């Protein structure tokens, strides 16, 4: 919806390169995420999407290139410093605080919103208790936001898989991101969970949070993204609206291989997405 008013870049990735030993995982990757948009980042398995996330959020050091958020360079920052700038990511492999209740998971996520220092806490200042009450209310709101309100007291590790994935997003949202990086948030969710997650994505957008979304479920990516960037073998091969991407011959080739190119081009664009998904998961 606000697609036309989005112009300003929030995140810029410029000539990013990441090596793992002799392996070139990302090769001169350049793209940007504009403030307020949902940008889909797609590509076959092993294309380097997760690696790009790791480089942006400070988990690995890129070999070269620039990454900046709102004009400030992220070079050399540790993950928590990146989070302090409002850039928060989730993990491809499910990652919650397993031994804590869903509610406490979100409380932990609220770390960045709290201002009381260790000394205030040790001396038990009234402001600490006030902030704590406020945070408990906020934690309830965040849990309700993703629809996990009724599961507040369940241990993170005891939640069904799909709900753990929701909890991850809740924890990330609790950290009050202005840019949220989601790494395959619906992988492992069943179709109805995926459908409701797409609604949550809509709500997240309404909060004014910019989203960079990595996802194999093409229906989902094409449904929620304003723009899509395609990564293959470490390089960006296409950048455009979902409609353009679905027709792009390079993308079709990357996903389906040369042999299927003709066949695929004849089919409707929506079907391409479905095949891409099948292949990615198989």
């Amino acid at each position: 919806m606000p697609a036309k008013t989005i112009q300003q870049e929030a995140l810029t990735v410029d000539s990013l390169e990441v090596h793992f030993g002799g392996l070139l995982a990302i090769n001169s990757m350049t793209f940007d995420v504009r403030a307020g948009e949902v940008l889909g980042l797609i590509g076959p398995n092993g294309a380097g999407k997760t690696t790009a996330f790791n480089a942006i959020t400070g988990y690995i050091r890129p070999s070269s290139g620039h990454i900046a958020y709102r004009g400030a360079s992220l070079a050399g920052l540790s993950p928590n410093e990146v989070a302090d700038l409002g850039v928060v990511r989730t993990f491809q492999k499910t990652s919650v605080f397993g031994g804590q209740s869903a509610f406490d998971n979100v409380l932990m996520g609220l770390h960045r919103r709290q201002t009381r220092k260790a000394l205030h806490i040790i001396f038990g200042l009234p402001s600490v208790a006030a902030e704590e009450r406020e945070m408990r209310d906020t934690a309830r709101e965040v849990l309700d936001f993703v629809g996990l309100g009724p599961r507040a007291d369940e241990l993170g590790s005891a939640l069904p898989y799909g709900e753990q994935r929701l909890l991850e997003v809740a924890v990330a949202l609790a950290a009050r991101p202005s840019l949220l990086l989601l790494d395959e948030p619906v992988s492992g969710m069943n179709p109805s969970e995926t459908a409701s997650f797409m609604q949550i994505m809509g709500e997240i957008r309404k909060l004014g949070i910019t989203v960079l979304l990595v996802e194999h479920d093409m229906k989902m990516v094409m449904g929620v993204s304003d723009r899509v960037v395609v990564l293959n073998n470490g390089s960006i091969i296409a950048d455009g609206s979902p409609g353009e991407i679905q027709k792009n011959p390079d993308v079709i080739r990357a996903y389906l291989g040369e042999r299927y190119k003709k066949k695929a081009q004849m089919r409707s664009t929506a079907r391409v997405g479905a095949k891409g998904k099948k292949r990615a998961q198989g």
Partner: protein
Amino acid sequence: MNRFLEVSVVLFLASIPFWLGNLYYLHILITTGIFIIAAMSLNLLLGYTGQLSLGHVAFFGIGSYTSALVSLGFDLELTESYTFVFEPKPVWFAFLCGIVLAAISGWLIGRISFKVRGAYFVIVSISFAEVVRLVSLNWIDLTEGPMALNNIQPFTFAIPGLWELTFFKKEPNYWLVLGLCVVCFVIIRRLVQSRAGRAMIALRENEPLATSIGVDVTKYLVLATILSAGMAGAAGGLYTHYVRIVDPDIFLFIYTVTMVIMVVTGGKGTLAGPVVGGLIFGILPEVLRAFASPEVQWIIYGILMILIVYFLPEGIVPAVTQWWQRRARGPEGSMSQGSAPGAAS
């Protein structure tokens, strides 16, 4: 209600010297209380941040020696012609110095080892304890080495010219230990139920996730080490001015092991765990002493610990709470939330 219960427990504990009627028992309670403080401080690190400080006794010993030396005064012959003379200072001041110096050592250890965690922290903390022990043994000018520092003053509180209270007797020492136990317990509880404690638990449970939401790993690990070391130092200071003698044996590895046993059997990462573990392993040796030789005592110790760790791997306190919750939730839990019992496992 809860607050009322807590105050009652503390008042009951405070009343013990009035009716116990046996100074030897009171002595056991005092030393047990000192060990409980040390165990609580270890739990802050081991239980909440997950870092094992196998040299924890170093902080205890630094608190002891510092407090003893500052209260006794000392002179150091620095050159032929110059001797540095440190005048004796009041005990309360010496005690504070002990806490501060222990906390500073904690900060130091934290800074160097938390860049590389886990096994490195264990190694650095053990080595540190050994170095401090060797210093206390060999820097005879300062510490008297194996001859020990003697005639350490007991605690004294004074309003100059008006009033003075010296803790020669066991009762005031007991209350002092109890008071410090309560203070440490309250501080740790405030901490772990706050943003700071949650950050520590988050690091223990899932470090990559914790950092992704903005938790500064090093900062909270160092904070935990400083507080933990300071509390251990306070326990050491109390100990020194109570037994009034300190020698290098205070750094023996066995004391660290005892603290670890207390924390692990009681339940690491729980508030009550070190208290329960400390009570058991503080009082048990004295009970056993009556009818078992030291070797047999150690065997009983070992068997008991193996049994506890085998049957209650998380420790006594978590086992009891889980049993209690299951019992409380029993009838209605099965109706309203089908999966609830699974959550306890």
